């Protein structure tokens, strides 16, 4: 029978541990540590989802098909079933590129002057709960 080490010192006390951590793309300084700030857990996933949705084709080097290419689809809004198609594309891109989420729901608002409001809700896999991203896509020019 193994002997219990009653004198073992506690080297690390961790109540919860972050599953996800990412750089803040704004590169702001942490007020105390003076290090670059981080995005953690749900915030990190949210930022990732936003990155995927707002990246157009050929924006990332050597990854021509990365992203949902939403801005590229603005010209197609008038077609029959266009919204459904965009929602399908968003889901497809997120399932392919973001393995940390499931049950993605996409709601598209009415398009007005080549703008479209997008609301994406999803569930984070490791039990962090549901979250959502909303933004407006519009033509650059």
């Amino acid at each position, binding site marked *: 029978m193994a002997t219990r080490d009653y004198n073992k010192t506690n080297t690390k006390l961790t109540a919860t541990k*972050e*599953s*996800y*951590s*990412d*750089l*803040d*793309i704004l590169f702001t300084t942490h007020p105390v540590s003076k*290090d670059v700030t*981080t*995005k953690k857990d749900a915030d*990190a996933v949210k*930022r*990732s*989802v936003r*990155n*995927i949705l707002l990246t157009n084709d050929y924006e*990332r*080097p*050597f*990854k021509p098909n*990365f992203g949902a290419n939403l801005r590229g689809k603005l010209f197609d809004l008038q077609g029959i079933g266009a919204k459904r198609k965009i929602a399908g594309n968003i889901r497809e891109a997120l399932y392919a*590129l*973001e*393995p*940390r989420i499931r049950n993605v729901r996409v709601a598209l608002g009415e398009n007005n002057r080549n703008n479209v409001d997008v609301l994406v809700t999803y569930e984070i896999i490791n039990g962090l709960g549901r979250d959502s991203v909303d933004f407006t896509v519009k033509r650059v020019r």
Partner: protein
Amino acid sequence: MATVKSSQINATDLDFDDIAANIKTYLKGQEKFKDYDFEGSNLNVIIDMLAYAGHIGGLNTNIAASELFLDSAQIRKNVVSRAKDLGFIPASEKAAAAQVEVKMINIRNANQTIPTENDMSMPRGHNFQTIYDGVTYNFVNTTTVVPTRDNTTFTYPTVDLVQGQYITDSFIFDNQIKNSKFVLSNARVDRAKLEVEVNSNGTVNKYALSTDVSTITSGSKVFYAQENEEGFIEIYFGDDVLGLGLKDGDLISATYITVDDIHADGAKIFSMADSLQGFSNATITTLLNASGGAEKEDIESIKFKATKFYTSQNRLVTLNDYKAKVSEYYPNADAVAVWGGEDNDPPQYGKVFISLKPQNSDYLSVLEKTEVTNKLNQLNMLTVRPVIVDAEIVKILITTVFKYNEKETTLSKGEVETIVRSAIVDFDNTNLNNFDSIFRHSNLVKKIDDSNVSILSNITNVRLRKRKAIKLNYSEGLVISFGNGFYHPNDGYNKASGGILTSTGFKVDGDTTNTYYFDDDGSGVIRRYSLNASGVRVFADQSAGTIDYATGKISINAIKFTSSVNNDTSIDFTVLPLSDDVVAIRGSLIDISIDDIKVKGEVDTISSGESSAGVGYNSTSSSSY
């Protein structure tokens, strides 16, 4: 932040994906940022940017390093620059040149007086024209020619023409500018025909193109010419050590020929485009057809020649020295062969023989031969004389009969025959037409079989033909060496039908009626015969010469020819070789005679299902022709 030392990053990869993977591996060693493996994360954006910068940096470094060496450089300006380090200046474009005689008759002024020779001199740059392949090309004469006069007839005995136009660029020398170089305004310039004059305080001096720095002194009036980064020719002058330097305000005139995009090599009919003193009634006799037009030296050629040039060090000692120099002096050469006089047949000691095959013709013109020989003589060892000989061309006559399965193709027999013919021509262009080349029979047979899926087999027979120029009305013997043994299975082989030798027709002194031919008796003796009305051979000379089957040499005894069936005063000798593989020796070139290719297709009756068990199946003889 990261707990892994930066030295642990694998930094040797150059591909984007590999670099990104290495950065991710590095990030696995730290706890703070865990999202490096998720494609959408901000961290991944940074990783992609780093990998992209690393990849592009590595790629640029790789390209830059490659361009530093002659062997791996791909950009022309870098290849030229590396070659310059070895003292090699690539050849420029070369204008085609021709020589004509011009005769102008009934030349009288309006007042009926006859102009003087000087009045009628033809200035340099006088325009001529030729129409070649339906396109008009401009030629100009290269030197002022003063005619000879016979009453009202003015004759310009030799007028040297070059294709293109004369252009003059002017520059002013400014000694405030260090290392000034003057770039010619046209890209396609024949550097060898570039003429430079410098007007210094009203005194005009002609400057020569520097070719050998060892002969240049501080007073030499020379200029240097080289290709610049844009591919234009730039000229510059000496520094009062290696050539006379220029003074501030000196006026430089560079006159040159602009080379046309298409070279009119082979053009032989010229007309005067400009009138001369108002007279344009000229009769022009072509002395030398246009030849020698060439593009600027390409990258592969520069890479090949620069190292050879460096090895030869501007001297002519070894055979390779001669090869390198001849290639430099005559960049239009397709192939160069050099052999010592001791290896010649018969041996001629104290000579070195050079054979050149120009790109667009079989032989060099007399003008070109003299030009190259004169240049070689300047570097030659005293006791050795270079001799440029025409390449001896052994033509290979191909007859092929192929069997094909007509169910395997939708093409007609004629179309398949055309494909086979093209395959043979392609084989010739790829493998032959060069010194030191070998015609490998089995390779051609395979190429024919592979030329179309429907072709099942082929029987390809080979004959060799060599053309020998003859002098009319002059008693002389002929020696024709094929360099390949002749077919001779037994003594007296095929005696009745003329052995293995045939020739084209000719007439001899003392008989204006009969056309004669040569054949052999199968025992080493050549016979001369004519054909009677029934087509039977009537022998006029039973021992007109000898034929050596082992060495492939034909010797014709002294005979006086008066005419030949061939238009160019020559006789063709055709033989059956011992081997179907043919090798080119010394100055020989082997070449498939495109005009003499005979192709015949036959439907394979067994494969097509027309016959079975070999009944009615025709085979072609492997020795027929």
